[in-house]
């Protein structure tokens, strides 16, 4: 299981490939489910230029670890990769990557979704958007269900 807060841009697709190649679990899993969240250039009908992501050092990592551990047990996941950006984010940047490996697809789909939804509700991150008319904190996440 790898959980990291990243201050620099990352490519989620390359991260998945790199992580899986180094796991040494070829043949041990039958399903991989991944979610990548990217930075949009619009929100609530407004054009967004940039974004800043604040977090609560140590608590954020702790929350992500607890969420992942719960998912690993509940869906018997073999492996989890969870990366989340903080700091200054540009349009198109990957913000979050959740990738899970399991024996079968049901566990992979459900475990991946659980991690994302729990992260959205409970992990201490806050987005501040910059538009042409100023900056504002995002007040709430959209529902994913």
């Amino acid at each position, binding site marked *: 299981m790898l959980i990291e807060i990243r201050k620099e841009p990352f490519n989620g697709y390359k991260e998945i490939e790199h992580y899986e190649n180094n796991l040494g679990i070829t043949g041990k899993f039958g399903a991989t489910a991944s979610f990548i*969240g990217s930075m949009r250039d619009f929100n609530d009908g407004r054009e967004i230029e940039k974004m800043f*992501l*604040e*977090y*609560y050092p*140590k*608590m954020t990592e*702790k*929350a992500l670890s607890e969420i992942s551990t719960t998912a690993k047990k509940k869906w018997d996941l073999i492996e989890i990769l969870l990366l*989340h950006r903080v700091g200054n984010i540009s349009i198109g940047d990957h*913000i*979050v990557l959740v990738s899970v490996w399991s024996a079968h697809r049901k566990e992979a789909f459900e475990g991946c979704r659980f991690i*994302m939804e729990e*992260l*959205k*509700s*409970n*992990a*201490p*991150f*806050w*987005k*501040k958007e910059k538009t042409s008319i100023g900056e504002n*904190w*995002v*007040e*709430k*996440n959209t529902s994913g269900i």
Partner: protein
Amino acid sequence: MQVTIKYFASLRELMGESSRIINIDEKSSVDDIWQLLKDSKQVELDNVMATVNMEYVKNDKELKEGDEVAFFPPVTGG
């Protein structure tokens, strides 16, 4: 007794500081100290998330010496 207070995001900007150490009465709860800290600001604890030592808690959670209490708005990661 002393506890450390932390604020994040819009609440940090509203309070004008990111952290401070305060002296509080024994058996004070999270809600007790929020009433002191918010001063004249019209922000109710119902609209704020609170943690003690990095765990989410209810507003009536009783505090202990050395606790780290954080207040922040609803989270918006992912």
